[in-house]
């Protein structure tokens, strides 16, 4: 038996780094802070790899399945003998896989950022927050307890907030960070209620109990139902809402594009590779419960995923901001993961969707991280996010060009790049399960290839030469991570994922099904070709197309006006129709009634002052008549 207790350090080292950098960072030289942060993370990465190595290769699977191991556990809060919150480290295939992903990407981003953020006034702060984020994310994935998961969700939300708002003097960055936090907070509210509901019926927060297939905890459940759905279904649904918020599923997706206001490495780390998949991870973590106890919700998840992927892909076509395109593509890809989970079965071959989802999560982290870092490199070079300012960059930035190309091919699902393999599994799973979703997914594959190629060709081809400053290739600190990730994006697809990460922990043999692969590759290729034709050099064809599409185009360009709808809801309804009236009500009615009492007393006091007229005879009159009235009252009426 391997002692995994050390894994707690995987989580703690980034936290310690955060504390050190947070408290003393401002007194350090910037580079020292960067190196310190990276060094800490490097240690963590090594530990994670070690863990993965031990877990997957050294430990003997029991009954051929990877078991989940509680490596570390501490009671954090206790409510009763049976109900308590624990914090700890839970190792199972997906959490170990996530450890690898997170530390890898995070390390890359750390190194990259030393170059990218050079000269930034908030350099140390940036690294402190990166550490905080890494800590939160790692803490999230190793949750032993659903509350720990919730805490992780909140904490990554916070770090995301802080990092998006890195350029806090830019109002748009502040607005974006607020939006990200509030929207995910809203989702977390759902998550919280879900937790409350589920734990109410199961009496536990512990994942080991909750996700135990034979768990008797569900059998004791009452038949409570609401609107025709069982309470547990509702609970799981609400928990999904939490995941949907973090993973920016429709309609909670609105924060993600805006989150691109943050520094690009942050986008790569948080808004592409790690945090946004937390929702997927959550669903995967509770997959057994979904599958057995709330299949309806799972179905729903599949549709939400499919819709989001299509919806985002469509929007991505029309955008001009390079990071926004990537953001929408992220949405789309996460939608893939979600739908894969949604269509998955349990155990063995049937659980291919689950496996595919995790697989895609893994490969996506690599190539999307790469895309963002590449985009960062481009932005760093030309100081703009706008596609229209770019062109012909392959000449100036060869390394970026090549690595970016690999990433684009990978995301488009062109073999042998990693994206192909995982996407193929997803399509296969969808095909098995639901033809509608399948077709939609294939369409998305094509769209993905198209808009990524559009981006690619626009940036790197064309004849644009009128740069104010000559763009140049980024420094080694930035290109080395690109290269490493490009390597990963190229070859990650060859990892036999199904032998490691499956729904029931048991390895199975997954095979490439040509009947699925060939159509999807053809679609992807045609997308690329179309994009090449339209964008490889400047032409007016795209403009004509946009004009002919009219409203549809404008709607897409404006992201189907979702931001406006949200703005309407918040500004008009919550602010103006709820908050303002309440503030008014409080000031004038509630407080007014208190002041009103004072006013009544004061007024009475003024009104009755005539009683004290200063005239002796009136006093006497009151005196006498008072006496007589008292006599009348007490001598006659009372007796």
């Amino acid at each position: 038996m391997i002692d995994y207790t050390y894994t707690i350090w995987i989580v703690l080292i980034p936290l310690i780094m955060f504390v050190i950098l947070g408290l003393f960072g401002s007194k350090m030289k910037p580079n020292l802070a960067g190196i310190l942060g990276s060094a800490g993370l490097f240690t963590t990465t090594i530990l994670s790899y070690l863990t993965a190595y031990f877990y997957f290769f050294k430990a003997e699977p029991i009954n051929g399945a990877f078991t989940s191991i509680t490596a570390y556990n501490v009671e954090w809060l206790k409510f009763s003998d049976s109900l308590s919150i624990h914090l700890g480290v839970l190792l199972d295939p997906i959490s170990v896989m996530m450890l690898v992903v997170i530390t890898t990407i995070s390390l890359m981003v750390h190194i990259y950022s030393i170059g990218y953020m050079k000269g930034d006034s908030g350099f140390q702060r940036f690294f402190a927050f990166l550490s905080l984020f890494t800590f939160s994310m790692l803490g999230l994935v190793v949750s032993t307890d659903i509350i720990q998961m919730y805490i992780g969700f909140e904490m990554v939300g916070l770090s995301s907030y802080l990092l998006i708002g890195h350029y806090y003097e830019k109002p748009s960055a502040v607005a974006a960070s607020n939006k990200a936090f509030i929207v995910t907070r809203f989702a977390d509210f759902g998550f919280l209620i879900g937790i409350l509901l589920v734990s109410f019926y199961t009496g536990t927060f512990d994942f080991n109990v909750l996700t135990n297939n034979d768990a008797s905890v569900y059998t004791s459940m009452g038949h409570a139902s609401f609107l025709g759905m069982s309470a547990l279904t509702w609970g799981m649904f609400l928990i999904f809402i939490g995941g949907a918020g973090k993973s920016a599923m429709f309609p909670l997706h609105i924060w993600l594009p805006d989150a691109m206001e943050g520094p690009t490495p942050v986008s790569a780390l948080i808004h592409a590779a790690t945090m946004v998949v937390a929702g997927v991870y959550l669903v995967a973590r509770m997959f057994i419960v979904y599958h057995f106890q709330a299949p309806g919700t799972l179905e729903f998840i599949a549709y939400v995923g499919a819709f989001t992927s299509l919806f985002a892909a469509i929007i991505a076509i029309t955008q001009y901001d390079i990071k926004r395109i990537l953001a929408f593509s992220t949405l789309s890809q996460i939608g893939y993961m979600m739908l894969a989970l949604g269509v998955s079965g349990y155990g063995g071959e049937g659980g291919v969707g689950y496996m595919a989802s995790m697989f895609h999560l893994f490969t996506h982290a690599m190539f999307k991280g790469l895309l963002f870092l590449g985009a960062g490199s481009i932005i760093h070079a030309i100081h703009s996010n706008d596609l229209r300012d770019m062109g012909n960059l392959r000449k100036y930035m060869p390394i970026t060009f090549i690595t970016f190309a690999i990433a684009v091919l990978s995301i488009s699902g062109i073999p042998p790049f990693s994206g192909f393999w995982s996407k193929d599994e997803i399509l296969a799973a969808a095909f098995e399960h639901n033809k509608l979703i399948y077709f939609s997914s294939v369409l998305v594959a094509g769209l993905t290839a198209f808009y990524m190629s559009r981006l690619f060709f626009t940036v790197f081809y064309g004849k644009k030469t009128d740069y104010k400053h000559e763009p140049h290739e980024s420094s080694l600190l930035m290109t080395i991570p690109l290269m490493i990730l490009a390597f990963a994006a190229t070859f990650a697809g060859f990892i036999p994922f199904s032998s490691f990460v499956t729904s029931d922990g048991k390895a199975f043999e997954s095979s490439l099904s040509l009947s699925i692969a060939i159509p999807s590759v053809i679609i992807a290729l045609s997308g690329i070709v179309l994009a090449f034709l339209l964008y490889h050099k400047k032409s007016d064809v795209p403009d004509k197309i946009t004009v002919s599409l009219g409203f549809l185009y404008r709607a897409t360009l404006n992201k189907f006006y979702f931001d406006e709808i949200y703005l309407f809801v918040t500004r008009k309804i919550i602010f103006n129709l709820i908050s303002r009236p309440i503030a008014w009500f409080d000031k004038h009615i509630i407080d007014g009634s208190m002041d009103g009492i004072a006013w009544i007393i004061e007024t009475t006091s003024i009104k009755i002052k005539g009683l004290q007229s200063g005239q002796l005879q009136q006093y006497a009159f009151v005196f006498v008549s008072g006496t007589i009235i008292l006599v009348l009252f007490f001598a006659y009426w009372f007796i």
Partner: protein
Amino acid sequence: MNLQNFLLMRHELLLILLVIVIIFAEIFSKEETKHRIINFSIVLFFIQTVVGFLPVTQGELFGGMFQNDIFRSTFKNILNIGVLIVLLQSSAWLRKEENKEKISEYIILLLSTLIGMFFMVSSGDFLMMYIGLELASLPLAALAAYETKKAKSAEAGIKLLLISSLSTGILLYGISMIYGTTGSIYFADVAANFGNSSLQILGFIFFVAGMGFKISLVPFHLWTADVYEGAPIGITAYLSVISKGAAIFIFTIILYKVFGAISHTWNPLIYALAVATMTIGNLFAIRQNNMKRFLAFSSIAQAGFILVGILGLGDMGSTSVVYYILVYIFTNLAAFGVVSAIYNESGKENMDDYNGLYKTNPKLSLVMTLALFSLAGIPPVAGFFGKFFLFTSAASQGLYILVLIGVLNATLSLYYYLKVAKAIFIDPSDNPIPYFKSDFNARVGLLLCVIGIIVVGFAASIYEAIYSFSSLI
């Protein structure tokens, strides 16, 4: 008249002696040394006060007309302390040029009203009570009009006298009916024969009206503010605490002992009077600017609170009432002491003249604040305890609604007490009352008050002592 009798009546006899001594002093002192009479009489009075504290036995004289016991004599001691403080506080004012000629008269009259109150407190029949009451009222009217040059003073005197006469008339009518229906003016006989016929109730209510005038209960209170405003401050203080306290005391005793049989009738009556008195007093106090007038209405409200305590019946009721009067004497005299010190110094007696007082006269301000808090019933000063016990006493009879009205009124009263505090501490002023040092006597008086305000609350033994005495009557 043996020694025993003398001891029983020593408060009254000593006071009479004191008055005679002062008359002689007046006669034999020279014009320029007249002001020494003040300190002379204060010292004498102090001795008298101390003697009053000697133990007393229970007994009655003159066939029951005069009754004394430790409870009554304790109360007289309380009054003595109050009067001592009043004398200390008025000495600066008495020394003023315009009052120089009438110093000893002032003291004599004051002391003779005190004699009246002592007789009233010790009375065992309506006749003595009536005489005591009159002796306690008539000279006060003259004292109220003491500043003969001032229109307000004259007005106060006339108002007091005439309303007092009217109330006496009504009181007497009531007493006559009580006499007619019970056949006696002795308390003991009346108590035995009092019934519930409407004529008796009528007599009783007329009696209450007459007493209500002295205690200034609503609706018999209207004279209070005007007289308080017009009278010299010392007299105002005297009226508001000593005179009122004595009246409340005998009123309580009479209610309990004489009219105990019809307590079910007077309970609602006192209830109604209490509510009216508290509320009206407070409502009027809110708007006042003149400090004396303000304290007048405040004292009306305080009388209402005391009535709440009376409703507690039994030992608890009388204890809480006497205890509160004790607290109230110190408290109100402290307030009047400050007002009078300031008036003597600057001639100002309006609330807004007090703006910024704390900056110039912090000590006086603190005394005033203590007094106000005690009046409002804010801990840790004595007023809190006093009020708490009053309400406790009423609650013991289950009168929770009355207690609620009472405490809400106390809250309302806090409003105007805080207004004074606000003027003193918060409101800025362009020309605040400049710093001054009041004379020795006044400071001693205030010191006594402050000690009283602080000690009486915490020293549970005082309450216990009163409680143990109250069961004796």
